[in-house]
């Protein structure tokens, strides 16, 4: 059966097993199993079967699961620095957001991530607006009930909408019934969560595109117990998988776009003038974040500039 010296590791993921991010987690594990010649073996718990999204970080620290994938935004207030990544900065695509997230962590190593081994980060493509009615101008948004996460609620309000904060799980029914009239989310969810069935239009508001940064972390004790050469394999494979996640997000966005078009839904581009106007409306949200962070003695301004530079560096659409 199993050799005595094989290290058994559990990997929890809040993504469902059919999601490409979980499939990447499995291929990541396979690669490590191969390269370490079977010295490590993974057991997967996708779809929140062991730890749900908001429970992940604490659960990995406490050793409920050895490795975990989830998003920073699930645990508001716990990652004040990493929250910078989730601002509506105008990300052009998921690969850019993913690259910036990893660079950001490498450069600043925020204290809030002490206590776990960060294996890799990734981030989805721009969060856009998907609505049941046609939207071309900022005025069309006034009073629109928009489903959003707690964090994107500020952007939704700044644009004149009425934010209704709820998880992705309840979005389908809420849109179907008209409880909300629009949702702020990457286009990928139109396919992944079937929401294309219940919206009609996607508004390409790239200038205010936000992202949600995600982590793959490992319990520190388990990490320290790994032999040096095995740790090296983990590091190498993880770096090699970062672009796979980034490109995966872009591929998923492409499929989401094709899916929603195939159902007869429309994609509405935003004029340059409107794009600028929308960006100017959410600017105070970014300023507010900077203010709060500077108040805590953290370099909020520098963070935002770093992300802007990153978008210039990586972001050719």
């Amino acid at each position, binding site marked *: 059966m199993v050799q005595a010296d094989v290290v058994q590791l559990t990997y929890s993921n809040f993504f469902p097993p059919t999601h490409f991010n979980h499939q990447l987690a499995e291929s990541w594990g396979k690669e490590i199993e191969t390269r370490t010649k079977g010295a490590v073996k993974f057991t997967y718990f996708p779809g929140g079967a062991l730890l749900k999204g908001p429970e992940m970080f604490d659960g990995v620290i406490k050793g409920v699961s050895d490795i975990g994938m989830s998003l920073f935004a699930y645990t508001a207030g716990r990652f004040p620095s990493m929250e910078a990544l989730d601002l509506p900065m105008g990300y052009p695509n998921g690969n850019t957001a993913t690259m910036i997230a990893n660079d950001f962590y490498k450069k600043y190593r925020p204290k809030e991530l002490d206590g776990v081994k960060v294996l890799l980060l990734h981030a989805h493509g721009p969060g856009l607006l998907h609505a049941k009615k046609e939207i071309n101008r900022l005025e069309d948004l006034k009073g629109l009930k928009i489903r959003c996460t*707690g964090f994107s609620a500020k952007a939704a309000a700044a644009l004149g909408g009425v934010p209704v*904060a709820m998880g992705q799980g309840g979005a389908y029914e809420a849109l179907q019934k008209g409880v909300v009239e629009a949702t702020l989310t990457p286009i990928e969810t139109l396919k992944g969560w079937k929401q294309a069935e219940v919206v009609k239009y996607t508004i390409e508001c790239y200038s205010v595109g936000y992202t949600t940064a995600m982590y793959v972390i490992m319990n520190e004790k388990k990490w320290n117990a790994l032999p040096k050469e095995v740790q090296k394999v983990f590091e190498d494979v993880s770096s090699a998988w970062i672009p796979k996640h980034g490109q995966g997000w872009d591929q998923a966005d492409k499929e989401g776009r094709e899916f929603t078009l195939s159902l007869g839904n429309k994609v509405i581009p935003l004029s340059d003038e409107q794009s600028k106007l929308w960006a100017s409306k959410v600017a105070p949200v970014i300023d507010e974040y900077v203010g709060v962070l500077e108040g805590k003695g953290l370099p909020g301004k520098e963070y935002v500039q770093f992300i802007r530079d990153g978008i210039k560096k990586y972001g050719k659409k």
Partner: protein
Amino acid sequence: MAGFPRLVRQLADFLNLIAGWSLLAMTALTFSDVIMRLFRCPILGAYEMVEFLGAAVAAFAIAHTTLHRAHVAVDVVVLLFSPKVQKFLYIVTHILAIFLFVLLSFECIRYGNDFRTSGEVSMTLRLPFYPILYGISFATMVVCLVLVLDLWFVITGRELPGFRWKN
């Protein structure tokens, strides 16, 4: 000893009153949120508040539910045994239950502490989570007291063992 049973009962009843009011608040909050949403001004964060109140409903009712022995238990087999054996089993399982709730109470405090030091808050209203964990911890501590009381009454023969709702 005369004061202790009364104190425990009053505590359990008081916590259950909080649970009841939380349930009413949950109803009122969601009801108003739905109405306000029709007028395009929903209560932002209603979702989170409902979760907080839901936790209060379940947690603050456990002591009362346990005091009135309203939990579901399988008694088919036990009823075949002699009263002596039944009493013995009741004592053993009660000690196990006390052990469970001591663990739960203890870990909820530690979980709450972790929430407090990490600064984790709810997404929209940015309310801290730790008071709920401390609340659950306190509620489960009262459950331990209730279980001790029930155990004491059964040992001294003032109550028969059993799990059926009693008023």
